[in-house]
């Protein structure tokens, strides 16, 4: 037995863990899990858990539906919010075919494959997402959601009733070993932001899954409902998942060049160019819901155009100011040079989102794509013609438009793999069509009386 597994079995015994939650993401990025009594754990570790994958979204195949969930012992973590008498632990699983090969519908595997590709060139991909979400009184879909407070940006007042929940969330995150960079009340009522500290993309995607789970569980404990839905309220800004990215080669940040403009290296510039080149199809993955596109509204913190800038909050990519001298890890100067991609929203599948963002960026690096000049000034105040004159195009305005872009993208097809690519397109098309069939209250109110 491997030492990892020995560690897990010992800890289960010593810490009196009763239940182990084995989990994995479906293709939407929803967390699927089954609970295992700890007595069954040893078998699960050595043989994996066989199950019928046909009812998992994105897993179904025509001939063969049996898959194996193989728990990754290195991910074993006791859940800090579990009852000490009925302590629970969690482990993420890799999904395999019965012959032991990686299963093509496992989005974790998609990201792992991308990371292996860049590893052969000596690179490591680090990401740090800013998670935004709302806390409402309930999940009742029949009315407009009711915020639990009326706090505003950075508010710390009694108006911020959600801050207790947030404080508890932070404490739990720390106990889970998910370090937080910042947290604050966001712009909108009941909207919160928690910025996670960077980590390698695979661990971070796992953390995003855990993050969404525990935020919802903690809100639920206080009788509220936390949601990562991108745009739950029509009149206030939506929730994004701005993602900071950097590439590392050993100890060195490959995006850092002390002599370059903004200390952004040639690799960093190519990476940005790659993402911009593929930004339109990328959106289908980073913003996968019909509702996602209602966040891309002119005049908010969300981008609507494909552009980059040093420091322009209407840009799709920013190169944030780095605090080059501050680092509690003692890392060298400039280690925090990074780019911030502002399109993703927190309802994405983080594995697929990080995988396609990386694939797009690396395409820019490999083809040494030239980076267009940055676009300063408020993009929202410029007309489409003025933007076109600067070579700025728009992000897709709807899921339907994004899916059309996705369908023609060879890069994303390769990055996602045939299985997920096909399933995703088919499933999302159906979602888009179902939405288009709706007759909305807007239409009734506007047209019924006068036509």
């Amino acid at each position, binding site marked *: 037995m491997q030492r990892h597994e020995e560690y897990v079995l010992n800890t289960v015994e010593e810490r009196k863990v009763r239940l182990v939650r084995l989990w994995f993401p479906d293709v939407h990025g929803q967390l699927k899990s089954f609970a295992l009594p700890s007595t069954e754990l040893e078998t699960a570790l050595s043989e994996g858990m066989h199950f019928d994958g046909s009812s998992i979204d994105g897993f179904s195949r025509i001939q063969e539906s049996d898959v194996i969930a193989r728990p990754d012992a290195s991910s*074993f973590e006791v859940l800090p919010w579990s009852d000490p008498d009925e302590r629970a632990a969690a482990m993420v699983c890799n999904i395999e075919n019965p012959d032991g090969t990686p299963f093509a519908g496992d989005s974790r595997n998609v990201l792992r494959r991308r990371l292996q590709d860049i590893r052969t060139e000596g690179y490591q991909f680090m990401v740090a997402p800013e998670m935004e979400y709302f806390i409402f009184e309930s999940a009742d879909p029949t009315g407009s959601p009711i915020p639990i407070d009326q706090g505003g940006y950075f508010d710390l007042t009694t108006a911020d009733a959600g801050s207790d929940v947030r404080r508890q969330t932070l404490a739990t995150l720390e106990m889970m*070993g*998910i370090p937080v960079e910042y947290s604050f009340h966001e712009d909108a009522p009941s909207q919160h932001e928690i910025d996670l500290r960077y980590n390698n993309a695979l661990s971070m995607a796992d953390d995003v899954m855990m993050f969404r789970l525990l935020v919802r569980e903690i809100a639920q404990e206080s009788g509220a409902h936390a949601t990562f839905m991108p745009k739950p309220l029509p009149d206030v800004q939506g929730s994004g998942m701005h993602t900071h990215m950097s590439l*590392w080669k050993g100890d060195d940040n490959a995006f850092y060049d002390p002599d370059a403009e903004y200390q952004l290296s040639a690799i960093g510039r190519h990476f940005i160019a790659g993402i911009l080149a593929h930004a339109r199809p990328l959106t289908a993955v980073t913003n996968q819901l019909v509702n996602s596109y209602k966040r891309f509204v002119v005049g908010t913190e969300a981008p609507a155009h494909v552009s980059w800038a040093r420091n322009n909050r209407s840009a799709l990519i920013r190169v944030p100011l780095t605090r080059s001298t501050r680092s509690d*890890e*003692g890392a060298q100067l400039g280690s925090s040079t990074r780019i911030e991609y502002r399109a993703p929203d927190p309802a994405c599948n983080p594995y697929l989102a990080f995988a396609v963002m990386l694939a797009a960026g690396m395409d820019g690096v490999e083809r040494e794509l030239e980076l267009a000049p940055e676009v300063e000034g408020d993009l929202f105040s410029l007309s489409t013609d003025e933007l076109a004159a600067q070579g700025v195009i728009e992000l897709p305005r709807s899921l339907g438009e994004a899916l059309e872009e996705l369908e023609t993208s060879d890069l994303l097809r390769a990055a996602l793999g045939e299985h997920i690519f096909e399933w995703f397109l088919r499933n999302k098309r159906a979602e888009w069509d179902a939405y288009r069939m709706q007759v909305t209250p807007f239409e009734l109110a506007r047209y019924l009386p006068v036509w």
Partner: protein
Amino acid sequence: MSSSAPTEPADLAPSVEVIAFPAPVAPDLARSLDFASIEWRAAGDVSELVSLVSAHPEATRILTAEPGFTELSAAIKELAAASLAEGGVLALIKGGQLGELMASDAAIDDFCVVPFHAAEFEARLARVRGAGRRMAENDGEEVVRFGALVLNVDTYQAAIGGRPLDLTYMEYELLKFLAQSPGKVFTRASLLSEVWGYDYYGGARTVDVHVRRLRAKLGEEHSSLIQTVRSVGYKLGEVRWPS
């Protein structure tokens, strides 16, 4: 008080606390050991070292990097080969050998740069000896302690100030590795190869990420247990010695 001649048969000898290598030992080392009333012996060559240590397996080994660091590492390997790797090892090295020490994976618990400051030497020796004793206590269960931190090597459990720490396997291994050599500074590269194994592909950032997670789990009160040594790496705790 003590002699450097390892001639007495083991069963007649008083309990030997320190074995120095190679003989003849430097005068200031002999003086420091004598002043501290430590019962010590010295071994002239590796085979003599092995037989002395097998007679006194609990004794702390003080190994001087003479003529070079290579000989010191070789001596440690010989002891390990003879299954005598249990007792603590304090290395005495020259300033110019620090590079070799940092690059080495030899099982050294602490070191002192010669010519040493007598008080520092005593403190480091006391720590190494104390660590050795602590490993042997607790009913045969191997336990590593540092301040409020306790790690049970047999059951893989960790606690700080009596509070159990729920760690992942790699977090546990990293903490254990650092706690086994308190005060010793490890580079990120050496931690990667020692804790993760040389075949691990992750970059040095992996170490930073795990340290950050460990600090988060240790809690604010104890987060400074793992210290960042600027532009070098990490260490666990401070080495303090009487001034």
